[in-house]
């Protein structure tokens, strides 16, 4: 299984990342990609904030620890499912509404493995990877609170 992990400020190209996965080998029958975007609102301090007030997002992470966790996450997925390739890209720094934040791509022989692994990777990433985001509302930064739904999402994958 080939994994490709990146944390970076730059934007990513979904078409290019898909091609990288697709061309890894000839056994690939299924490629699933997930892309997360900055919505025009975000749950902040338990309240929904409308887009017109959300002007920016800022993503911080713990360099070194984040990449190690992302590598662990990819390896854990490869233990659970038969995978041929995994790509995880997470952006950091300043982002605007509608910007791309995160990409997960999985290549496998059969579709159910790629679907399961991609969803698992996202659930795990949300709950475990050392990223913190804050949003600019009006002229003030607010740290985003974690969603309980993200913790619930992990439950379906059993012990972790």
């Amino acid at each position, binding site marked *: 299984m080939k994994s490709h992990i990146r944390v970076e400020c730059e934007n990513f190209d979904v078409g290019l990342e898909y091609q990288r996965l697709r061309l890894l080998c000839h056994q690939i029958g299924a490629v699933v990609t997930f892309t997360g975007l900055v919505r025009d609102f975000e749950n902040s301090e338990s309240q929904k904030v409308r887009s017109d007030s959300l002007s920016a997002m800022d993503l911080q992470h*713990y360099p070194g*620890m984040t990449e190690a966790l992302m590598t662990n996450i990819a390896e854990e997925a490869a233990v659970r499912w038969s995978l041929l390739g995994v790509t995880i890209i997470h952006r950091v720094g300043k982002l605007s509404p509608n910007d791309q934040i995160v990409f997960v791509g999985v290549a496998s022989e059969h579709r159910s493995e790629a679907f399961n692994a991609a969803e698992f990777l996202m659930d795990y990433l949300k709950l475990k990877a050392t990223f*913190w*985001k804050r949003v600019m509302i009006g002229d003030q930064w607010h*740290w985003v609170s974690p969603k309980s739904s993200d913790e619930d999402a992990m439950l379906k994958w059993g012990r972790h």
Partner: protein
Amino acid sequence: MVKVLFFGRLGDFSENIELKVNCTEIEATPKKIRSLLSEDNVNLGKQLAAAQVLVAVNKVIVGWDYPINDGDELAFLPPVTGG
């Protein structure tokens, strides 16, 4: 010397913190260092005491009683919100 890092909302309460601890003398743990920090900065102390704050030593999640040595990197991590 222990390098102490604060992430997410914890960073708002901890600008310009420098911590000099003689680790061997006090048998330093994340819990003890949290106490030292809380004495100097009540607001930061409240944030660090929140139930979901995790602690990492040298980029690995550890318990609050994990022994810390000179040169270690200690990080306080509020709940993550990536993805």
